[in-house]
């Protein structure tokens, strides 16, 4: 009897293993069709991101099928491309931002492409003069706040250090998160060499420093802290999908630092023409609208009319940037070592 049961178990296992691939919706049955391999960060191609609808409309427009590969966040994508250099399956990469530009250019993984579709993009948004990485959307790092917990938001970085904001701010770790690094660079852009002293003053206001943006924003949404480091466009999500104007982005008189997300063509691709067509498509109205609605970022195409909910997005008067551009890997390592020192005494 025991043996029968084990036999049954074995049969069930075999059945499960054999039917297992069915649980993944089949693909790869489109032999003969042109397929463009696009590497992107996970939330771009996910069911909740802009990827699927862009791929669909691109297929309708051109007959070229898009296959996404998303091994993690943007940094993971870059790492994979560097590891695969020269023999990558990828044709196009989407989602490497301006903070990664130096590394992208140093790695030599992209081919330049001066797209005619860039005509609709304001020149100050074209962050790579060599045209390896072309912008497709952008935003500003900002402190978002819950207007019901905090009727009077801070108005500058210095203001954040006030006593009334003790334990009120959630930040991200610059060692593990892009916005976290963005905020550190923001304080450097504003305070120059005086940034470590600024962080000393800021420390009492920080409730915690999270690993990722997702964790930090979660703490903020459940009301654990009234302020979080996020994007100037974050309030738009809550208006568009939850119908509430409660969450807002604070405008700082020091100015804001920009994040520009870029895309590019992988060196040595066999599908250069199709890759160019896709990049042009990404800058067109249809894809830009999908990006605005599902990535909750600002479009680079200046001809696009923004939906009503974008009135809640921050349109800062002043933009700051680092005087010498983004630091390279070694400089970032030095900054981060200095940053951890501020916390460890």
């Amino acid at each position, binding site marked *: 009897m025991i043996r029968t049961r084990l036999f049954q178990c074995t049969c069930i296992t075999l059945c499960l293993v054999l039917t297992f691939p069915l*649980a*993944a919706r089949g693909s790869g049955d489109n032999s003969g069709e042109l397929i463009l391999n696009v590497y992107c960060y996970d939330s771009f191609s996910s069911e909740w991101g802009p990827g699927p609808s862009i791929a669909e409309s691109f297929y309708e427009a051109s007959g070229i099928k898009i296959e996404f590969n998303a091994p993690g966040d943007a940094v993971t994508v870059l790492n994979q491309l560097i*590891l695969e250099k020269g023999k990558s399956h990828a044709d196009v990469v989407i989602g490497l931002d301006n903070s990664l530009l130096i590394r992208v250019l140093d790695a030599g993984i992209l081919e330049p492409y001066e797209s005619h579709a860039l005509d609709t993009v304001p020149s100050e948004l074209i962050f790579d003069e060599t045209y390896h990485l072309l912008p497709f959307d952008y935003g500003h790092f900002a402190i978002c706040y819950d207007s019901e917990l905090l009727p009077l938001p801070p108005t500058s970085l210095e203001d954040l250090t006030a006593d009334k904001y003790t334990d009120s701010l959630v930040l991200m770790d610059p060692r593990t998160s892009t916005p976290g690094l963005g905020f550190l660079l923001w304080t450097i852009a504003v305070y120059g060499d005086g940034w470590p002293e600024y962080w000393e003053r800021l420390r009492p206001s920080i409730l915690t420093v999270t690993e990722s943006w997702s964790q930090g924003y979660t703490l903020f949404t459940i009301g654990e802290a009234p302020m979080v480091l996020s994007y100037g466009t*974050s309030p738009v999500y809550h208006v568009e999908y939850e119908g509430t104007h409660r969450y807002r982005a604070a405008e700082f008189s020091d100015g804001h630092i920009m994040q520009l997300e870029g895309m590019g063509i992988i060196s040595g691709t066999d599908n250069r023409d199709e890759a160019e067509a896709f990049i042009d498509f990404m800058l067109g109205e249809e894809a830009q609208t999908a990006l605005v609605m599902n990535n909750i970022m600002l479009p680079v195409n200046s001809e696009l009319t923004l939906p009503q909910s974008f009135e809640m997005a921050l349109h800062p008067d002043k933009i700051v940037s680092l005087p010498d551009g983004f630091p390279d890997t070694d400089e970032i390592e030095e900054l981060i070592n200095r940053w951890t020192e501020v916390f460890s005494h």
Partner: protein
Amino acid sequence: MKNRGRQLGGTWVLLWPALFWTAAFAVPLIAVAVRAADSITELVHLTVSPYYRGLLGFTVKQAGLSTIASVIFGLPGAYYIGRYRFPGRSLLKSIATVPFVLPPILAVLGFILVFGNSGLINSIRDSFSGGEAAPWKILYSLQAIVMAHVFYNFPLTLRIVGDAWSALPQSTYYAARSLGAGRLKTLITVDIPRLAPAILTAAVITFLFCFLSFAIILVLGGGPELSTLEVEIYRLIKYQLNFDRGSALAMMESFIALGLLIVYVRADSWLRKRTIDDALNSGAREPERIEGIKAVPAIIYLVPALFLILAPLLSVVLHSFIVRPTRIAPLQFSFRHWARLWGGGIIGGSVPLAAVLRTLILGIVVAITTTLTASFAGWYSSHRSGRTVRVLEAMLILPLGVSSVILGLGYLIVANRIPSGNFIRLVALVGAHTVMALPFAYRIISGRLKEISPRIPQAARALGAGPLKSLFSVELPLARPALITAAVFSMALSSGELNATIILAPGDFTTMPLAIYRMIGSYDIFGACALGTVLIGISIISFLTLDRYGEISF
């Protein structure tokens, strides 16, 4: 004579475990090692750096504290689960395993909803003090890290030691009692020494888990001053692409883990040798009922224990059902988050439903492959002794002591070489999950197999059964509770795993943790709570079913 009986049976059973271990563990690690040729020189450099020594010190300290707290907190629970029958016992076992399944982000969320500055405890306190007092800051400190680790890991002690307790033979117990030993004396002199291997197993696994813990430490620790080697490895590998130094740090971690494992494997076989001399396990002790005065200590323990597990889980469930239009307005019950999950909205179709199905099937497949692999290896080691077995034991538990960042990097490198195609990627995913679950499954199953008196399989063999037949028809059925526990843990680990899944799964193979992670990543935190509720629900049901199956007596 006895030895010859043990030597029968081939080494070929190790083929299957070796295959998994090599493909899903050794190959990715070698792929990293090839790219980190200078890590040995880095290693020397690191050991003299005060910064890294400080990191190491804190890593060991928090893991040690967390382990002690988890074991102490889990032991009474193991006692009640192992020795008593009471209403809700199997439910308690199942619920206690759920934190294991939860992706860390949801566990942290539940934790903050209860213990946070504006969490449940503080709002109760507020309503008494009139909201004047500053919040009671429980989290964002070392104690918060330890609490969260206890929440995550005490089920290990509860289940592993609990199962061992219920399998203790009645003969020695009654012998001690009839010779005049009291309950307490019997507990200390008879039970605890026999449970020592199980307690040691639970402690070692807990320590390694906490040693490599990552997200919990960053969020709940409150700042970068409390950070671990794993955070540093993550940064070096991912942001600096400094494979040499990252691998060197990971090697430091693994050396410590390996050292611990060697001590553990030796201590384990020493402890078992002292207790195995007993003859046949002539039936386990009858479980008792909690009655009268015995209920007092039970309640004193079970109520706070239940609160620690249930409160964070229930807050996740609760938050999927409530909306609060404005701060002053009362909370409202609503299906809004659930409606977003299943009907249209931002998500077309029913992605979550498919995700539930995939997670379940993946979990079951992993549970079966892991249990089978662990059974083969456990059978081998229970019939042999000496150096080969010790090496095998250390190898099988080693995946617990290797940084997940390094393994992830290995998968990233290997993923490019895996021929594309959904089936191959899924097989790779099952392999990765199996290797992760193997250390648990192996410890649990081999521990049980070693307790079976060697005379039983010898009798089977004498009656003409081959080694495989003896394994499948005699030994494994005798170890059924252990097989079930191993399967439960494997399934739980697989159902909550995110890091390997995100790299290895084919593009459209969204599992529950992936869906939760993506929803939180696109602002929909309460939708993620709803999906988390589904995950909690199906985990409880699957564990209950499995446990029930494990307790049917032949």
